């Protein structure tokens, strides 16, 4: 199995997803199944091949560096689970 319990905990931490103890083993098994299956890519000869980073060859468009939108504080805060006095509210992050 390519993914063990510790790896699941580490990856879940990196992904900021809380994982209960009883979930660790099933995730390890499922992630291993998927990663073992993608191992078949190792048999492909990729010598000298450039990674493909865009689905269609294109140059990223440029535009004038001007403000095209803004002054929409109410819109931006309208879906926040906790907004106060024009700000997003979160638990204290500095002591």
């Amino acid at each position, binding site marked *: 199995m390519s993914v063990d319990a510790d790896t699941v905990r580490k990856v879940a931490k990196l992904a900021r*997803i809380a994982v209960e103890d009883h979930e660790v083993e099933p995730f390890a098994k499922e992630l291993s199944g998927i990663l073992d299956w993608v191992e078949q890519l190792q048999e492909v000869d990729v010598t000298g091949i450039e990674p493909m980073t865009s689905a269609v060859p294109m140059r990223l468009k440029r535009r004038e560096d001007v403000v095209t939108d803004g002054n929409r504080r109410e819109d931006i805060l309208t879906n926040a689970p906790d907004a106060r006095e024009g700000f997003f509210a979160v638990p204290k992050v500095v002591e």
Partner: protein
Amino acid sequence: MTDLTSLTIADARYKLRAKEFSAVELAEAFVGNVAEGDALNAWCEKTPDLAREQAQAADARLAAGDAPSLCGIPLGIKDLFCTNGIRSQAGSNILEDFRPPYESTVTANLWADGAVMLGKLSMDEFAMGSSNETACYGPVVNPWRREGDETKLTPGGSSGGSSAALAANMAMATTGTDTGGSIRQPAAFTGTVGLKPTWGRVSRWGIVAFASSLDQAGPFTRTVRDAAIMLQSMASVDEKDSTSADIPVPDYEAALTGDVKGKRIGIPKEYTVDGMSAEITKFWEEGAEHLRAQGAEIVEISLPHTKYALPAYYIVSPAECSSNLARYDGVRYGKRARLSQGDGITELYEKTRAEGFGDEVKRRIMIGTYVLSAGYYDAYYTRAQKVRRLINRDFEQAFEKVDAILTPTTPSPAFGLGEKSDPLEMYLQDIFTVTVNMAGLPGISVPAGLSSDGLPLGLQLIGKAFGEEDLLNTAYALESALDFTAKPEKWW
């Protein structure tokens, strides 16, 4: 009077302009079907009042003689599209009651052309699934059933609400998105036409992102002509999406001549796989024969890296998903978990994401996080991108010899809800469709016929990048020859 809800867009367009019925009457007929269709669980939000309002406006435009093709046409919209002030949750609990204060470019284009919105359609959570079973609203049920069998079947996924609603006459056309097959597979499972345009043809602005280098929106319709009409409106050059192609949108409907004389159609030998139903093989051969009879030349081709498309996809798409879904943090929108005394910002993120995401989404985020993490990036992610280049090269070489490629859309017809519990088994659903996303090409699924137990099967045509006109025309010729007219018997 004929049943208004079974008309094509092309027919309804003519009859609306001829004043055979009004847009309001048409909208009412669909609103009625939507209200009676709850057994299928296709809709996650119904907007009958908005539909009536838009239909009145459409009637005014029709009376004034200013009526684009979609004026007064009632549509269903996949939950992945942001619609101003209307719940848009992408099938996820983490976007609980999210009401965007803006409109996606695609839906804005449709409303500008006079279309009428019936509501939002259920889908697999964040478009990750092939059966609509990962939707936070519960699975959608396919209006089609096996002959003499009441087993509930999947309408496909991720755009399962879109395919089911159209097949059940609850909308005249619907929108979908396709990252690995999420338009074409559900279309094949419901006897409808599903088009995935070239990546960059349709703006992604305002569509909840899953895997940005693969996602593309497209229509579900009853006919290829209707697909051309829908694409005409959905496609645009959009300043808000810097990856939308700077290529003018041509007149797709005008390209539908039905003439395929001299066209070369490729049959890839790698698309014959184990476990494929004998019936789909038969339809595939018949489809090729139909095109040959109309003057096309059938050419055997090879796409040697086909078998690596799915594993490469399951590195590239989770990698992009883990990055795109990092934005769901419980701070700016959507759900926030209830916190305990002393919990800080990290617990806020971790608990919110644990509660808000379903298991399939968590699996993909974790796979993506793993393949992008230090020490694994080159072995997995960079290698997958190289394999993607080889898959793309296979198509480039094939398209030097052929104008389009004909394949089955899926290896088999719709399966029962709950039948596939292993994630890998589910992933194999996309074996014939995912290659097209990896190469950014346009693909269309056209209904081919019924299996021996009475379920629809689809054939896929793959075209050149930005070659939608030619692709639609070939699909139009194929559709005329296949002449699929079957409808699901109403049981809901």
